[in-house]
Structures are given as C-alpha cells and as structure tokens.
C-alpha cells in the first residue's frame, strides 16, 4: 500500500478545543491533500500542500508536511460542532494524477 494509516482513528473533543490528526504515507509525493466527509456524503476538498512546502494555513485549518518522515498533520483550531465529520488525507504521487486516500479520522465535536 502506498498510503499509511491516519491516527487517531477517532477523536472526541469539546467545542472550542483544537483537533489534531496525523497522516503517514510511504511513497514520494507531488502533493498531499485533506478532505472532509460528512456522514453519508461526498468528500469535500479542504487544503492542498505541495511537497516543497512545510506548512499551510486556511482559515482555522493548519496543515504541516514533513517529507523526511513522510507524514502530515491537520490542526483544526477552535473547533465547532459543525466540524464533526471524517477527515481524510490523500496523496498524489510524484508522477501521476491519482488521489490515494488514507483510512480517515472520525472527529466528534461536542457542543
């Protein structure tokens, strides 16, 4: 498998707290992306970080990438109940267009 596991598999936090989830992968990548999936719905793109970038921000989202460790993290700051969803990382290999997903982290934000 080119994609490792995400951890934790599930995360339960209180509204206002930060949520951090991690993703590991096994191959050289062009970029890494994070997607969100509400229960029973499609995936929505959140943020993309290229292999030559180390950190990226988008609103309350912060993504880091460590290509030497082949890992990425997604931080959601000041979480809201509406952030309750599953979050998936996905990679694009160094040569290709295919997006390969990890197993996802289920996040529950309690009001």
């Amino acid at each position: 498998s080119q994609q490792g596991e995400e951890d934790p598999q599930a995360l339960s936090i209180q509204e206002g707290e930060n949520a951090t989830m991690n993703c590991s992968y096994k191959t050289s990548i062009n970029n890494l992306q994070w997607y969100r999936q509400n229960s029973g719905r499609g995936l929505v793109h959140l943020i993309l970080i290229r292999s030559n970038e180390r950190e990226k921000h988008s609103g309350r989202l912060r993504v880091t990438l460590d290509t030497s460790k082949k890992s990425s993290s997604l931080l959601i700051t000041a979480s809201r109940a509406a952030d309750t969803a599953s979050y998936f990382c996905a990679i694009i290999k160094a040569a290709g267009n295919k997006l390969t997903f990890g197993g996802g982290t289920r996040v529950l934000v309690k009001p």
Partner: protein
Amino acid sequence: EPEVTQTPSHQVTQMGQEVILRCVPISNHLYFYWYRQILGQKVEFLVSFYNNEISEKSEIFDDQFSVERPDGSNFTLKIRSTKLEDSAMYFCASSVGGSSGANVLTFGAGSRLTVL
C-alpha cells in the same frame, strides 16, 4: 458553485444483475474518476479516465466493471454482474488536472449500491 451530480442516489439490486451508475462531471474538467467506499472503510480508487480512455485502474476494477463517456456530459460506471461485496457507496469525481500535478478533485454526493 459548479458541482458533480450523481444518479441514482440509492439503488437496490439483486445479485447477478447489471447496474449503471451515472455522473455528470463539472463541464470544464478533463479528468474523471470513480471511487468506492464500503461502509465504514476507506475510500478506494477504482479508475481514472482522460481523453476518452482509461488512464489508470486499480486491481478492484476487473472485467466486471466498465466506464464510458457516452456523450459530452455523462460519465458512467457499469457493473456487469453484481456481487454481494459490491455493496458500497460509489463516488464520481472530476478535476481540471494539469501538468503541475496539483490535482484537486471535486466529488459527487455518491450513489449507494445495495446488492441483495
């Protein structure tokens, strides 16, 4: 905002029957994909399609499966003889693509297939 639309949203079929899942990708997108997600499991790549032909397929995408772009707008996934294990949510996606490899996919809401 442009979106990928999928029909049907839910289909129930008997084992051995043929199923066609339909997708209308975003109009200026060039790359089309099918993924599936068995309940509670990860999202698995099935096939990618570009320039009217399959560009890549996974080992899941065997002879039972086929894709077609019959006209300028629709992109279909056909499952020829469904098995119980084909029960899953099937997602269509499309992207502009690009030589830079920054391929952001837009997903449809999915078609839930239940094989009895």
